[in-house]
C-alpha cells in the first residue's frame, strides 16, 4: 500500500516505514531529511514521546516499546536527555532552575542538584546568568541552557531535535564546535536531527538520510558523498563543498611511490586545508599517516576528479 493510499483510504499519515538503524555507542548519529521526512517522528520514538504502531526500539537489548508507564518514566529520567528545536525552556523558571529540572523531577536533593546545575552552566559558558529568565537571553544562549538541561541528569543518550536550526548561522557554527568539543570528553550516544546537510557532514560520525518516512541511505559522510545510494541523495549532496568534508585518505593514491619532495600532507587532513599545497606542486605529494609513515601520494588530478563532479 502506498502512502497516498493509506491517507485516502484510512485517513492515516505514514510517519515511518520499515526503518532499521543501528546507532553505535558514544557516537554522533545524524538523521537528516527535509521537513515531512519523518526525522522528528523517528527521534521521538526513542523516548516514546510518540508511540510506534509497530516495531521495537532496543537500547542495550532492552525494548523501549515494551516498558510500562513507570519504567518509561525511569528510562526518560535516567537514560535520555533531549534538546529541542525551539528550546522549549520553562519560561517561569530562571536558568538554574531550568537546568535543574530533570534533577528535581528525580527528587535529587537541593545541594547536589544545585552543584550539578552550576557545573553544566559553567560548561556551556553561561556563568553569571543563573538567575536570569529564559526570555532575557538570546537564542544561542537559550539553546546552551537547553543543552545544559539535557546534560545535567548525565544521560548516556542525547536526543537533539534540530537543536541548532533556529539559530543564526554564526551562532550555529559556534554551537556545533562546542558540541564537538564537549563530545570529545563526554562520549555520549547522540542522535542529532537536522535538515542541513553541511551540519550533518560536520557533526555526524554516521549519517542517515530519510525521505518520505523511508531510510534511503545510512553511512559515513564520505560514503554518502562518494557513493550516494539513489537520485534523491545524489541531488541532495550535489552542491556540497567536497573538499571541505572529505579527507585526503578518501581520494589519495595508495599505490604511489615516495618521492624526495619535502612537501607532504597527512591522511587525516581535510582536502580544503591542503588545497594550496597540492595545487601549487608540479609533482605528486607524499602522504604520511599519524606516525609519519609513508602511505601513498596525492596529485592535482585526484583533487580535480573530486571537485569537478
Amino acid at each position: 500500500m502506498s502512502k497516498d493510499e493509506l491517507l485516502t483510504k484510512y485517513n492515516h499519515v505514514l510517519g515511518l516505514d520499515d526503518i532499521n538503524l543501528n546507532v553505535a555507542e558514544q557516537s554522533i548519529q545524524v538523521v537528516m531529511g527535509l521537513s515531512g521526512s519523518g526525522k522528528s517522528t523517528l527521534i521521538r520514538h526513542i523516548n516514546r514521546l510518540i508511540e510506534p504502531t509497530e516495531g521495537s526500539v532496543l537500547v542495550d537489548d532492552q525494548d523501549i516499546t515494551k516498558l510500562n508507564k513507570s519504567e518509561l518514566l525511569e528510562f526518560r529520567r535516567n537514560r535520555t536527555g533531549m534538546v529541542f528545536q525551539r528550546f522549549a525552556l520553562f519560561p517561569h523558571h530562571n536558568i538554574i532552575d531550568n537546568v535543574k529540572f530533570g534533577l528535581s523531577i528525580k527528587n535529587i536533593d537541593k545541594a547536589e542538584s544545585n552543584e550539578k546545575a552550576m557545573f553544566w552552566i559553567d560548561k556551556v559558558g553561561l556563568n553569571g546568568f543563573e538567575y536570569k529568565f529564559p526570555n532575557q537571553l538570546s537564542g544561542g544562549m537559550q539553546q546552551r541552557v537547553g543543552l545544559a538541561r539535557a546534560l545535567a541528569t548525565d544521560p548516556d543518550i542525547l536526543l537533539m531535535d534540530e537543536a541548532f536550526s533556529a539559530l543564526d548561522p554564526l551562532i550555529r557554527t559556534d554551537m556545533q564546535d562546542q558540541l564537538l568539543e564537549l563530545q570529545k570528553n563526554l562520549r555520549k550516544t547522540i542522535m542529532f536531527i537536522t535538515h542541513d546537510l553541511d551540519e550533518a557532514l560536520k557533526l555526524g560520525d554516521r549519517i542517515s538520510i530519510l525521505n518520505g518516512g523511508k531510510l534511503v541511505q545510512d553511512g559515513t559522510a564520505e560514503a554518502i558523498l562518494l557513493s550516494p545510494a539513489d537520485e534523491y541523495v545524489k541531488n541532495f549532496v550535489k552542491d556540497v563543498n567536497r573538499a571541505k568534508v572529505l579527507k585526503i585518505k578518501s581520494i589519495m593514491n595508495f599505490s604511489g611511490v615516495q618521492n624526495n619532495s619535502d612537501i607532504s600532507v597527512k591522511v587525516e587532513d581535510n582536502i580544503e586545508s591542503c588545497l594550496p599545497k597540492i595545487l601549487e606542486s608540479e609533482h605528486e605529494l607524499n602522504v604520511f599517516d599519524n606516525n609519519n609513515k609513508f602511505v601513498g601520494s596525492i596529485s592535482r588530478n585526484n583533487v580535480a576528479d573530486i571537485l569537478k563532479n
Partner: protein
Amino acid sequence: MNLSEFFITFPEMSKESLRIFKKSIDGAYRNFSREYGDTIEAVFDPVLYFLVWFEKLLQTSPWPLVILVILILVYLGSRSINLTIGSLFALLLIGYFGMWEDTMSTVSIIGVCTFMSIGLGIPIGIAMSNSDRARAAITPILDVMQTMPSFVYLIPVVMLLGIGKIPGLLAVIIYAIPPIIRLTDLGIREVDKEVLEAADAFGANKRQKLFRVQLPLALPTIFAGINQTIMMALAMVVIASMIGVKGLGQPVLKAITNQYFTMGLLNGLAIVALAIIFDRVSQSFGKRLQQHRSGSRE
C-alpha cells in the same frame, strides 16, 4: 381545523396537561425538599458557622485594626502606595457615612464566596483541561449558570434551604464560579505544547507536570478568572439581599422600594469602592505573577 389556522396558532400542549406537568414537577420537588431539606442544610452548617464567625470578627473587631489589616493586604497585593491611600480614604468615608457594618457583612460574604469558588473552581477547571469529554459536559452547565436569570435558580434554592445566608451564598457562587473554571481550563490548555513535551522528555509524571509546569504557567490566566469571579460576586450582592443576605445590598433594596435616592447612591458607591479595591489589588497581583514574561533583555 383547517390548514391556515394550523400555521397561525402554534399547536401547543393542552392547558390541562401543561398544568399537570408543572404541578407534578413542583410536587415532586416539594416532597424532595421536605424529605431532604434538613439533611442538606446540615451539610452546609460548617460553612454557615464559618460565615457567621467571619462576619462577627469583621464587625466586632476595632475598626482601626480592621482597616489596618485591609490596608496591609492591599499593599502586599498591589505594592502600590496610591492604591493603599485611596483604599484608606474609601474605607474612612464608608465608615463616616454609617455603612461600616453593612460593608463588613458584604466583605465577609464576598470573601467566603471567592474562596469557595477558587477551591471548587480550580479543580473543576483542571479536570476540564484534562479531558475533552469533561469539557464538553461542563461547558453547557457553565453557560446555563451564567445566563439563567438568578431569580429562577433562587426559587428551588429557597424552597430547599429557606431564606438566609446559605441560599445567598449558593446563589452568589453559582453566578460567580464560571469564570474561574473557564479560565483555569483555558490557561492550562494554552500552555505551550513544546514546553509540555520537554517536561515529558525529562520523565515528569502527570502530577509533576501539573504542579511544576501547567499550573504555574496558567497562573496569570487563572488570576484573571479570580478577578472576574470577585467582580461577579459583588454584582450579586443586591440580588442576594432579596433572600436575606445582610450587607450593602439590603439598604439598596430598601432604597429601591422606598425611593430613597441618596441612600441608594451612597450604598451603591460603597459597593463600587469595594469593587475597585478588589479589582485593582487582584489585577496587579496577577500582573506580578507574569513578570517573567515581560522581563526585559539586558
